[in-house]
């Protein structure tokens, strides 16, 4: 509103303004409740309801007892809040004879996600850097294959990878699954990093070369410190992606190592009599909690990073 003040002062200072010029001045009066605003905020509100509804239903259902769930109004708030479904989902829900709930799957997911995220990002960032700044003959060909690989339905490679892992003696091991996540995360991450590093002025890279830094020197001393946001983005993408993975977790590991999503599916599908929707919903929320926390914690960076990486495409 600084402009208005300036304008008003100018008006006062001018003093003798001809009558015909003394019409409206200053800022245009803004109506908060204009028709446009009603439509604008109305639409946003309706959309927000659509997006929030499932979360609401999950939370509400998970806090109800089974008798109340059976009453059938999924939107009504719980009459009597109970945390039993949460406890059950976390600690005692059964798959076959294993009644440890999701807790085991949680730690498995942590054990799978942490090394996978680190390895996949390390490799992809170096790939992106090599592609953006150190183009060598054939680099584009490999990159093109890699990007096309991003579109190949996983099913096409499911079986050959079983064979590959078997030949390497890694089938069913944590290492094997980490490698699979690294391989399948590579196309999109490499693209992300390549685009980001390409957007860093080339002159900076040239200056570093004149200053005597080599391939690794430039990567660690110049590029890495400048790329914190894109690394955070990559981490967000990978943590959510790997945490949420189901297919690889189920195909390439054994039950000791099942990640949380697989356990969730097992618990939800291990119906013993009636489906315990409240426990299922609690289990669902618990499973989604980690990526949700990552997302809420990273907030703006998530959005900004996506923009930086993807818009340049």
């Amino acid at each position: 509103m600084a402009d208005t003040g300036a304008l008003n002062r100018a008006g006062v200072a001018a003093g003798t303004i001809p009558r015909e010029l003394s019409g409206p001045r200053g800022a245009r009066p803004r109506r908060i409740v204009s028709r446009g605003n009603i439509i604008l905020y109305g639409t946003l509100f309706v959309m927000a309801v659509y997006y929030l509804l499932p979360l609401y239903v999950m939370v509400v259902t998970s806090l109800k007892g089974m008798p109340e769930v059976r009453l059938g109004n999924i939107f009504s708030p719980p009459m009597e809040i109970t945390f039993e479904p949460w406890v059950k989902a976390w600690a005692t829900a059964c798959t076959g004879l294993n009644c440890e709930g999701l807790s085991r799957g949680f730690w498995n997911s942590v054990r799978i996600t942490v090394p996978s995220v680190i390895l996949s990002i390390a490799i992809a960032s170096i790939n992106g850097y090599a592609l953006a700044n150190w183009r060598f003959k054939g680099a584009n060909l490999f990159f093109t294959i890699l990007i096309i690989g991003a579109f190949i339905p996983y099913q096409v490679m499911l079986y050959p990878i079983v064979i590959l892992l078997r030949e390497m003696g890694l089938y069913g091991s944590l290492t094997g699954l980490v490698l699979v996540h690294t391989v399948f995360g590579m196309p999109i991450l490499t693209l992300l990093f390549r685009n980001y590093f390409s957007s860093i002025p080339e002159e900076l890279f040239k200056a570093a070369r004149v200053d005597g830094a080599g391939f690794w020197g430039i990567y660690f001393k110049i590029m890495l410190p400048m790329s914190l946001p894109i690394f955070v983005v990559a981490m967000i993408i990978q943590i959510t992606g790997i945490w949420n993975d189901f297919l690889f977790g189920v195909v390439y590991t054994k039950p000791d190592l099942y990640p949380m999503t697989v356990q969730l599916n097992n618990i939800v599908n291990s119906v013993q009599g009636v489906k315990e929707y409240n426990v299922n919903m609690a289990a669902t929320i618990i499973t989604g909690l980690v990526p949700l926390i990552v997302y809420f914690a990273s907030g703006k960076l998530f959005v900004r990073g996506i923009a930086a990486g993807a818009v340049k495409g």
Partner: protein
Amino acid sequence: MSSVIINDLSLSFGDVKVLQSLDLEIGKGEFLVLLGSSGCGKSTLLNCIAGLLDITDGQIFISDRNVTWEQPKDRGIGMVFQSYALYPQMTVEGNLAFGLKNARVPKAEIAKRIARAAEILHIEPLLKRKPAQLSGGQRQRVAIGRALVRDVDVFLFDEPLSNLDAKLRAELRVEIKRLHQQLENTTMIYVTHDQIEAMTLADRIAIMRDGAVQQLADPATIYNRPVNKYVAGFIGSPIINFVDGQLVMNSDPFLKAGDLKVPLARYEFSGNGAREGNVVFGMRPEHIFMDKAAEDLPFRAEAVVEVIEPMGADTLVWSRLAGHEFRFRVDGQTAIKKGDRIAVGFDPARASIFNAETEMRL
């Protein structure tokens, strides 16, 4: 003794020839400006000298060493970029020290060199700041400092002033010149598209076009005796007047262009001599005079004023002379108006005449 020698250098990307068989020899302590419009290959040439681009053919020598396949860091060069290219995460001091650390220069020596560079460039108070906290001019000083601390024989400037506003540009230009004078034995190769920078800074200017050098000479020669029509048109502001005409070689040679007839007895033809035929006659606006100042000149005529562009110190007059458009410069205080008929004159000895087909100087 030569500092940088470029021998038959070519560069192509696939089928596209970017640089074609260039030969250049730059003396120790010389200030060479590579001048040309964008896309002429001047920056590419600089990158080749720096070793940032692999050349297709030819050789590069720096300080009598064949560095054609050396890494940039081993060539004994420092480089300053248009966008400053300061490492944003490091302080000014860190930026200055980075190259030295990579070269494993002892700490004490690094401190000494930074102190010296900071003094020369007046950036001592900035050493602890990050680049983002600096103004454009300060950043470019730091960037120059980064080349300075490397203690190298050759400085490469890639349009270092193009991102600055006019006032700062003038300031830093002088500073670069002073720096060059201070560092007597340092060779500087400077790429720009700004002819004022080129004229003010250069010992010699290489004018480039389409990956080839058009003319390599000192600024005065470039200005007074451009080797071809392109160079004549490129250098000088306002732009040189061109008139298409015929060269007639009677006892006294003269230019005939419609009703215009200019005696060329005083014109110094270049070595390969002059032949009759179609030519382009060039005359710089600042070499055309009016009224009294024109009285003693070998060529005089009457011109009609069409447009007047006052520019403060002087005024640019667009006039029509014997059917041809001539721009010329007069004093800023002039009282002439549109439609005035005025007497103008010039000395044909200061003209440049080019073959209409080859566009080479006659």
